[in-house]
């Protein structure tokens, strides 16, 4: 009896071990799964199914779009929110019809996708949320102060640099608990992009990326993790996506923008930041595109585009057919035009006209077997 139990338990341990390592091999099995659904569902020619993968940020809006578009054109969009990095990898290995990412393509993407197209389809803002008991007035912060807090140089809430920006607010003599994202994330990319653009020290010491080596602070997993830490820990500060903050009615700071005005994060101020951006053509190199710290009186300083990534000629994708190519391009066109009206309801920021014009040119340039798809 004894022996049996031990044997059984050891067997179970072995299974556990197998389970632990699954994370390491998940990538291949994941892509295989995407592929099978694609080929099985596209077999009946009546309704076309498009698959996409990437950004978790765009997922709620993408779900809305796919629901509306299914009813509109009988084209089904299967979108897997596996993260921006994963989205880029999937489009590079051609297991999906389009990729979506919050950070623009870098050399990895451009070296694998020749002439890759970048299509910004929505905009997101990042807020600084905090929890200071007893402070009811909205906190004002600027780039230097935020960078110094995240560098660990400003340690207490009543530091002169903070009180100078907030006259009349009685800030406590308490240590600041700094919170950041622990998972790789486009939100972190945008936030660190902002800090790099306002603070040379940050740029040299930490830099920008989806995951960082943080000088100070605790890591929370996902927006909900960071929000949870802020909510449960007095005297904390962290960065959280705009939509998440508004939906959960969290306190957020007013930030000083490039032109010296204090702006709240709202759909209008984030849109204003995007309107001032100088953008390359869709087939250009977008690696350095950034709308953080944009000029403009009304521009909110921490915001970012989120992008669709596509091959310039859709026949590069092995499962692409002409009807599918037409459906895909049609969906993209709809997304940057009529689709935009669904954005504000879900607290996404619609594209400014200027960006829609650039997207139009890009979408028109998409080809299938050398022929433009949209005529």
């Amino acid at each position, binding site marked *: *009896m*004894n*022996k049996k*139990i*031990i044997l059984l*338990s*050891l067997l*179970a*341990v*072995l299974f*556990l*071990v*197998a*389970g*632990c*390592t699954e*994370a*390491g*091999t*998940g*990538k291949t099995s994941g892509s295989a799964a995407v592929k099978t659904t694609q080929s099985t569902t596209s077999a009946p020619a009546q309704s076309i199914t498009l698959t996409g993968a990437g950004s978790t940020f765009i997922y709620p809006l993408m779900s809305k779009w796919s629901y509306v578009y299914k009813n509109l054109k009988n084209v089904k969009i299967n979108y897997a929110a*596996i*993260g*921006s*990095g*994963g989205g*880029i*990898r999937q489009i590079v290995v051609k297991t999906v019809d389009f990729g979506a990412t919050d950070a623009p393509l*870098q050399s*990895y*993407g451009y070296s694998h996708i020749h002439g890759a197209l970048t299509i910004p389809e929505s905009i997101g803002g990042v807020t600084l949320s905090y929890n200071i008991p007893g402070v009811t007035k909205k906190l004002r912060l600027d780039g230097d102060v935020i960078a110094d807090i995240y560098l660990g140089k400003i340690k207490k809430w009543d530091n002169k640099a903070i009180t100078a920006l907030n006259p009349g607010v009685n800030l406590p003599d308490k*240590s600041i*608990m700094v919170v950041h994202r*622990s*998972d*790789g*994330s486009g939100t972190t990319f945008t936030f660190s992009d902002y800090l790099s653009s306002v603070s040379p020290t940050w740029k040299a010491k*930490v*830099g*920008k*990326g*989806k*995951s*960082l*080596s*943080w000088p100070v*602070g*605790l*890591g*929370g*997993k996902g927006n*909900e*993790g960071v929000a*949870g*830490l802020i*909510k*449960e*820990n007095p005297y904390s500060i962290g960065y959280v996506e705009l939509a998440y903050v508004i939906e959960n009615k969290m306190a957020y700071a007013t930030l000083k923008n490039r032109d010296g005005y204090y702006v709240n994060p709202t759909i209008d101020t984030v849109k204003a930041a995007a309107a001032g951006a100088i953008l390359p053509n869709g087939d250009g190199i977008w690696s350095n595109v950034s709308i953080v710290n944009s000029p403009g009186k009304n521009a909110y300083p921490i915001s970012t585009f989120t992008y669709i990534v596509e091959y310039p000629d859709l026949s590069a994708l092995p499962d692409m057919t002409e009807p599918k190519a037409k459906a895909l391009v049609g969906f993209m066109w709809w997304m940057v035009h009529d689709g935009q009206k669904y954005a504000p309801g879900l607290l996404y920021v619609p594209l400014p006209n200027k960006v829609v014009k650039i997207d139009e040119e890009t979408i028109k340039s998409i080809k299938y077997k050398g022929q433009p798809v949209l005529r």
Partner: protein
Amino acid sequence: MRFPNFFFYFRKSEGQDRIFQFFMGTVALISIIFLTLLLLYELIKGSMPSIQHFGYDFIFSTAWNPVKDEFGALPFIFGTFVSSLLALLIGVPICLGIAVYVTEIAPPKISAFISPLIELLAAIPSVIIGLWGIFVFAPFVRDYISHFLIKYLGFLPLFEGPGYGLSMLTAGMVLAIMIIPIVSSISREALLAVPVLQKEAALALGATRFEAMIQVILPYARGAIFGAVILGLGRAIGETMAVTMVIGNRPQISSSILHPGYTMAAVIANEFTEATANIYLASLIEIGLILFVISVIVNAIARFITWKYLRIQEN
């Protein structure tokens, strides 16, 4: 019914049994070896760029900077060990208490009520335990336990402040809760398997219930209990979601269990989806490889010790 008997050397039933045993044994062995080799192959292949670039330094380096492509696994190995050991330290006495109470002390009606309730703990998804950890348990640890430890034992490096709720200690306690169902139910089975004669003999010799428990019943079942503990350790080492929610996710090695840390499973879960650079991805896979090797070593040790105990018992 007669088979055309290929194995007429044996009596029919014996021959069939042997063949069956041999066949099943081979299948089991092949599948385990094949799976292990496949996993090892995939992991080593995936982590090759990192192995070539960092070499042995990877295991001993404390750097983790995805922006500058500098990677080292030591803080994660440290965090995995410390949080798992804390879980065993806190969880195993509780599990033994539960097992002893349920088998020896509680009236049958109560134990029939308690056991399924404890096993139900295993049905809670770990992400739920993690969220409960952030919103309920971590603030509790911060306000009561950390606060108390810093106040009275803060002079020890082990309990140095500041104590945020998110720490090795909180992770260890959450893990302890998560290993309770499996460890306590296997320990309970082990105690139930102790022959009644042994128990009664001890009591007949004048032992109190406590003495019988400590000197006869627990020693008799220790092999299986040890197996249960190792099973718990396996769960603790591999646990991802609940840990990453409460451990603070800071790749550092600190003497204080009230400071945040990071584990191997947590960093893989956190950073794998967004890792695009080759060397970054390879480093994460190498951490998976280390996790795999450590788990295998832990199992090997456990198997060796249980085997030794069993042999002593048989002699």
